[in-house]
């Protein structure tokens, strides 16, 4: 009797969750893809078309325009918004950040994952604790120091700040990967007469390439997307605006139409999304490695 009841309950649940699962999947697809579709859609129509029919989810052939992109990308001298320059600035800052972060994080991650040294536990705890401090807490003194050093409106200064933001996560990601490389490989290299530094350069780094790329990608993403510090340090310096900052400032101008704003958003989003899709698997594995053991 009870056995039968339990069975029907299992059947009911199986069926119920079987349906619910597809509802959830559809819901997730809608909430994640639709906003981005909406963004691209609006960027492709003139503002009148948007105001005339705000609820439409497509663009008719006669409305279709690329003028918004032309307006956003053209330099300010020729009446555009100068996003080409912002894109270059963002690329410089982000690539610089990736380079500096990896330079700072690789030796540290190696040491924490491999070498037993005095204070190792404290150092790895410190790196994680740093991650816990609010950006706003750092923003105040960095703002002041940079104002003093005259770095406050330079792209280099911004990259240095981003390094501080990204080093802890990078160490964490790299460390998780490095611990999976068998120690015996290093011992073999040592037997062949490699010094510790040579071992790292010739054996460990090539083996850790996927993790280096994943970490670099993540750092690039953070640097490309960052807004607070760019706003604090560069707001007065339109020549060194990053795309994020440029877009935010653009939105403050009342004469800029929303469709142009959306074109700017697309321009800002495309590089990082392309990069992400090119290396999606790498990034997700790099980020979550170690999560299954946590």
């Amino acid at each position, binding site marked *: 009797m009870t056995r039968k009841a*339990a069975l029907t309950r*299992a059947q009911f*649940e199986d069926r119920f969750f079987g349906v619910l699962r597809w509802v*959830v*999947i559809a819901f*997730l*697809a809608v*909430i*994640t893809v639709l*906003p*981005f579709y*909406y963004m691209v859609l609006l960027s492709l129509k003139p503002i009148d078309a948007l105001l005339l029919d*705000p*609820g439409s989810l497509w663009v008719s052939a006669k409305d279709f325009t690329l003028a918004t992109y032309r307006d956003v990308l053209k330099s300010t001298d020729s009446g555009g918004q100068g996003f080409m320059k912002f894109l270059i600035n963002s690329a410089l800052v982000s690539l610089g950040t990736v380079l500096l972060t990896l330079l700072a994080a*690789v*030796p*540290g*991650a*190696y*040491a924490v994952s*491999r*070498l037993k*040294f*005095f204070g*190792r536990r404290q*150092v790895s705890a*410190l*790196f994680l604790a*740093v991650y*816990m*401090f609010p950006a*706003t*807490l*750092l*923003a*105040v*003194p960095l703002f002041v120091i940079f104002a*003093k050093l005259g770095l406050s409106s330079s792209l280099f200064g911004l990259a240095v*700040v981003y390094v*501080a933001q990204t*080093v802890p996560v990078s160490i964490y990601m790299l460390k998780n990967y490095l611990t999976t490389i068998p120690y015996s490989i290093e011992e073999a290299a040592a037997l062949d007469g490699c*010094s510790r530094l040579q071992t*790292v350069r010739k054996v460990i*780094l090539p083996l850790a390439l996927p993790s280096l790329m994943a970490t670099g990608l993540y750092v690039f*993403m953070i640097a490309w*997307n960052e*807004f607070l510090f760019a706003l*604090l340090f560069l707001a007065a310096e339109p020549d060194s605006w990053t795309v*994020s900052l440029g877009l*935010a400032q653009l939105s403050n101008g009342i004469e800029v139409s*929303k469709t142009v*704003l959306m074109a700017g*958003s697309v321009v800002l*989003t495309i590089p990082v999304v392309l990069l992400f899709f090119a290396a*999606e698997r790498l990034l*997700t594995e790099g980020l*979550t490695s170690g*999560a*299954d053991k*946590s």
Partner: protein
Amino acid sequence: MTTVPTGTPKRRDISPPSTGGPAPTGRRPMTASRRANRAGLAFVSPTFLVVLVVVVLPILWTVLLAFQDAKLVDIQGMSLLGNWSLDNFTQVFDSAGFWSSLNTTLIYTAGSTAGSVLLGLIAALALRTPFRGRGLLRAAMLLPYVAPVVAVAFVWEVALSPQYGIINNWGQRFFGWDDPLAFLSTRSYEVDFLGLHFGIPLALLTVIAFEIWRYFPFAFLFILARLQAVPDGLEEAALVDGATPTQRFRHILLPQLMPVIALLCVLRFILTFNKFDDVYLLTGGGAGTDLAAIRVYDFLTSRYDVGAAAAQALVLAISLMILLGLYFKFFGNKVQEES
């Protein structure tokens, strides 16, 4: 690699073979560990230096600044140890809206954290077993997380706009809304329901929804990774025993997932508590979304009051530490054990 740490360990460090007499026992492992120690310190020093200069020292300086009367204009000539006072703190605590902003921050953080982890869990469960297009959907679901905050904030702003936003347009067309809702500028939306009259903090709920939407992929990634590491045997055994899906989830999966969920909650709580840009871009801190982090920014940029900004940031950091301390006091042991 161009950063050659100073004091790179040399191989010559190996102790010379001891001459005469039996070698003291344990000498060799001692030197090996000492070499590892020295190499470790050498390798970690560049990283440590960076963290020290760009993170630790600035934080210490914030603490100093918080006790000084520091305006941006006269900071040039200020000595590191100027006049000490508690003025900044009295100013912060006395200023209108401090407690309410702390309260708002708490609600915002707790709501966003719980929501994003929960939605991440649901998403991970739904995408657990393979189906056509799962890889594509999984990648697409990470879009809100990887896309720049400025861009997605504008999309939400446009979509929610009362004049030309698609949400209000559809709401009026298909759901019979009487008036367009100003999602991002309504502090309290008055509702009459079953004879009760109450206000919904619409703007705050909207920014919480935004935060959930933006960060659930992060939780999803971690929970999915953990789900895939759950041994098959466990669930098969439960299946043979006739456990229903809810029972299997409750008694098999959830205990396995608990450590990663706890970790995600702590992590998201910390990061959301200090969040600035998302809400600043959406509402500018108006309409009941005056988060503490936005007040720090306001002190810094509109009044150039560095001291007050530092004090406010410090208060924020200390509140967070107290909350975390409480959490680990009550739940910490459990988390530690399970990890």
